[in-house]
């Protein structure tokens, strides 16, 4: 309906009022009666045996309520953390998953690993007593760089003697080799995708509470998927059956993937409550702990080769990647460098033969898992850097080289599983080049050169796959869960609507966009729609929010439930208006009977449904409440072209992104204002990866050197420009709303765009990320030396 709040409208967010007035309700804002505080004793070593833990002195410290170690966890038979996606190596063997107890047993494997928990009356007391826990470590050799991990003398898990978790492959090796034999030109590149630390602004937090009377647990937690957390804590940790465990994720202050996973701290809090007499146990990460123990992102080392024929057509692509897993396999870690990465290596291009091999390796670092884009930024980086490099080597214009190789016919089956359903890649390229004023670039470059600066332009024609599905297909690939979504629509007797969804907003604005869909479909005022999420006692089950899935999957589930609501409401309206359901039409919130002037407002039908006076309840059940589960038939494939323009200060090596253009195809868009915001945020994170952010572990000590904002550069307002956005639209054929996904696109596209611009500016093949001033200055020195 066209009331200004339906699909496509720039509706101001409903959730904003509470956030703007300080009335948000984040986990750390919650305090329960008789609450205690947990503080974790963490490993100071990258790799060590635990010979002895002496808690005697700590237990005598003021306020201490309990101290627990891995031994207590083992004694209570609490299961370890799991990795929910089984990957098989190309030789058929299953991945080598080492044990991951919530508190270390016998050994620590990274700086920050959880050794013990101290629970006390106050946070300060817990922290002080944690400092008094004496741990006797036997330091072992360690390895922190993924490039060095294979076969390193630091053997991290017994099950993986060479530190290799799996050696996985995709594509047709023989066909790819054959293509390379025919190639007129082969482009080779070595790339490092730098390790990132997610840094949602709200640190992780948890309150675990065991009700001794009801034998029931409650966990408040900063989660993107509280139902998955409950499932894992029930089924795998074995804490309690699901009906005895309630997980609540209230307002969540950003996630970017890092709050998908089931972590030790949250599990320990809810477990430990029982052992401190049922008192609630609260833990809030200090930012330092977030750096040490949130799952990190990326950390790939890749060699890639691209074969082209004499006409500049890509004929083959070979990739070998070493992917760091960190010290343990985090919840979804194994699917990130495999099915979320190598399946996108065809990019937007028609490449007849692709072969990729991935070695996943343990390192003595924080676990690595999905971080905004999860595998797809890594794939885009490899594809777009090598495509750019190939164009330069072939002396072709990078835009025209891309255009020549774009997929133009849909559906398009790639050699790496994905079947692209719809797109118009050239349209996005044209639009982006227009907005970015590519024609004017040479003049701008000359102006920069006159000042002693270097200016470069870089493209990134990305594609991503999100709304990962269907469940049966991903199950066959090793997923431990299905990736559908649930929705329940409850129409109240007065015609207001509650939507219960398994999606969970941590900044995406679901309370607004989901309400827009309902408003559009039922003609209900947007203020009469409430979105309920984030509580396993309210929403029956759901898979949560990640992978840009809440629109394409979550909203489609709502749409399906709305179909059922509409169908039932028509039957009720027909009964009340004494006609047949086939003759009832529903538009703009009003039911009418064809060919008559009979009509009922949606609210009247809702009331009739509950009053139930005017229909035969043997034929129509009273009430108006429907639910649906939606399992998509395919991924959705957002794509677009981003163009970065950078200027490098010739004196200092400082790189400034002076123009950034993004043209994206997200299919149909519910709320353009929110979608644009998602793009802005993603681009900034990608610029951060390209120019600023990099987690660095010291090779010698194994310590995290970038353990705070003093050393890890978060993009600030002055580090980025305002962005120029454009949109193209090819509706997605696999969901009724025609939606794709927009949450990750910016972070997927931008690192390659920026680094293509940096390398263009300096006329070099590669500059490592992050291209900090020092890194770029080093390149300038090389160039100067070469020129001398």
């Amino acid at each position: 309906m066209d009331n200004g709040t339906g699909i496509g409208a720039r509706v101001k967010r409903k959730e904003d009022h509470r956030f703007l007035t300080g009335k948000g309700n984040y986990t750390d804002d919650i305090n329960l009666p008789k609450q205690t505080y947990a503080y974790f004793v963490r490993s100071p070593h990258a790799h060590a045996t635990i010979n002895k833990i002496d808690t005697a002195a700590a237990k005598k410290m003021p306020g201490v309520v309990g101290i627990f170690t891995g031994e207590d966890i083992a004694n209570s038979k609490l299961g370890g953390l799991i990795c929910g996606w089984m990957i098989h190596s190309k030789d058929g063997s299953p991945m080598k998953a080492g044990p991951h107890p919530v508190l270390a047993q016998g050994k620590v494997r990274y700086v920050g690993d959880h050794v013990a928990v101290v629970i006390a009356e106050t946070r300060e007391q817990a922290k002080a007593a944690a400092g008094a826990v004496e741990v006797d470590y036997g330091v072992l050799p360690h390895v922190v760089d993924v490039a060095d991990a294979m076969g390193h003398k630091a053997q991290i898990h017994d099950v993986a003697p060479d530190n290799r978790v799996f050696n996985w492959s995709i594509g047709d090796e023989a066909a790819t080799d054959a293509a390379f034999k025919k190639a007129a030109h082969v482009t080779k590149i070595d790339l490092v995708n730098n390790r990132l630390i997610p840094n949602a602004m709200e640190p992780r937090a948890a309150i675990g509470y065991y009700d001794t009377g009801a034998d029931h647990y409650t966990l408040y937690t900063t989660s993107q998927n509280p139902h998955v957390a409950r499932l894992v804590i029930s089924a795998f940790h074995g804490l309690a059956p699901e009906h005895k465990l309630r997980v609540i994720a209230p307002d969540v202050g950003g996630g970017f993937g890092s709050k998908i996973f089931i972590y030790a701290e949250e599990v320990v809090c809810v477990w430990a409550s029982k052992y401190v007499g049922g008192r609630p146990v609260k833990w809030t990460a200090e930012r330092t702990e977030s750096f040490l123990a949130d799952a990190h992102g990326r950390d790939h080392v890749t060699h890639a080769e691209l074969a082209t024929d004499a006409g500049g057509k890509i004929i083959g692509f070979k990739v070998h990647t070493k992917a760091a897993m960190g010290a343990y396999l985090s919840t979804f870690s194994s699917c990130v460098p495999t099915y979320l990465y190598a399946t996108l290596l065809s990019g937007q291009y028609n490449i007849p033969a692709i072969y990729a091999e991935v070695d996943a390796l343990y390192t003595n670092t924080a676990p690595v898992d999905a971080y905004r884009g999860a595998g797809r930024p890594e794939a885009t980086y490899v594809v777009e850097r090598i495509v750019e490099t190939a164009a330069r080597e072939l002396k072709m214009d990078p835009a025209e080289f891309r255009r020549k190789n774009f997929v133009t016919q849909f559906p398009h089956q790639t050699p790496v599983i994905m079947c692209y359903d719809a797109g118009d890649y050239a349209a996005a390229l044209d639009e982006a080049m227009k907005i970015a004023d590519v024609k004017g670039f040479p003049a701008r470059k000359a102006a920069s050169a006159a000042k002693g600066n270097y200016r470069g332009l870089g493209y990134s024609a990305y594609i991503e796959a999100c709304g990962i599905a269907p469940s049966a297909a991903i199950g066959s690939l090793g997923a431990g869960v299905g990736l559908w979504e649930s929705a329940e629509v409850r129409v109240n007797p007065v015609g207001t609507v509650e939507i219960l969804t398994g999606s969970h907003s941590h900044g995406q604005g679901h309370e607004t966009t989901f309400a827009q869909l309902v408003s559009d479909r039922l003609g209900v005022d947007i203020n009469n729609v409430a979105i309920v999420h984030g509580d396993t006692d309210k929403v029956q089950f759901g898979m949560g929010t990640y992978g840009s899935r809440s629109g394409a999957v979550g909203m489609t589930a709502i749409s399906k439930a709305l179909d059922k609501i509409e169908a039932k409401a028509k039957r009720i309206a027909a009964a009340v208006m004494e006609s047949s359901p086939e003759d009832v039409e529903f538009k703009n919130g009003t039911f009418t009977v064809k060919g008559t002037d009979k009509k009922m407002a949606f609210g009247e039908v809702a009331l009739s449904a509950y009053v139930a006076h005017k229909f035969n309840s043997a034929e129509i059940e009273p009430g108006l409440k429907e639910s649906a589960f939606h399992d998509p038939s395919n991924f959705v494939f957002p794509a677009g072209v981003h163009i970065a323009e950078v200027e490098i200060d010739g004196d200092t090596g400082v790189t400034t992104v002076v123009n950034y253009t993004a043209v994206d195809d997200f299919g149909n868009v519910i709320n353009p204002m929110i979608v644009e915001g998602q793009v802005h945020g993603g681009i900034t994170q990608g610029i951060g990866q390209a120019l600023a952010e990099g987690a660095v572990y010291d090779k010698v000590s194994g310590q995290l050197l970038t353990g705070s904002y003093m050393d890890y550069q978060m993009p600030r307002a002055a580090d980025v420009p305002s962005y120029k956005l454009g949109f193209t639209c090819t509706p997605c054929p696999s969901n009724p709303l025609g939606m794709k996904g927009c949450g990750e696109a910016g972070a997927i596209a931008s690192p390659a765009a920026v680094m293509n611009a940096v390398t263009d500016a300096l006329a070099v093949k590669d500059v490592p990320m992050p291209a900090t001033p020092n890194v770029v200055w080093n390149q300038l020195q090389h160039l100067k030396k070469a020129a001398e």
Partner: protein
Amino acid sequence: MENFNYHRPASVDDAVKAAKAHPEAKYMSGGQTLIPAMKQGLAAPSDIIDLGALKNSGVSLGSSLVIKAGTTHAEVASNADVKKAIPALAGLAANIGDPHVRHKGTIGGSIANNDPAADYPSACLGLGATIHTNARKIAADDFFTGLFSTALEEGEVVTAVEFPLPKKAGYAKFPNPASRYAMIGVFVADTGSGARAAVTGAGHGVFRAKEIEGALAKGFSAASLNGVKVGTDNVAGDLHASAEYRAHLITVMAKRAVDAAK
């Protein structure tokens, strides 16, 4: 952070008395460096002597510029006398930390702490300032003695900083991309009786760059610095910048400081 006893003396004398009575005490002015250090467990004083009640802030301009120790960065940045007499100093203050830090942090606190990446020490050294304490006056050249260390005796408290008026002075900072402290900051001054150039952020504490001063002695212009190379003796390398890069930045920032000098 560790707990401590809190004192809020109303006079300098009382502050000094309190410090003498508690050998493990620390003075706190704006707290913008001390509180983070305490939160990180890098400092754990038994007593905090908060100088906030001394009301020792303000600027006076005569034949020199005197800034009382408790004057915040924000006050220095916006003070008309500072802007008139030594605009480079106002500009330096305007870019310390962020606006919120500038509302709290003070000149006295900054120089007494002598963080190797702090801005003010370079201005003091670059302008040849005199540090006034409760007990004496100390030339900046004698005041900054090394990493986080100064000529202050136990219990001695900075009361003001007196800056001679230069013919012109400039400051240019290359911030550490993460912390935004100075990765290199160079303060240059044409004092009328020679050029001074002080460098902060290089790693081992603020120092005067003889190479820069020597070059500027031949003419206080950026062109004088062409080809000047600063050695890495006083320069450390770290995660963010190699010693070579920092040394290079000293010359670049010195040029920019000279260009900006007013």
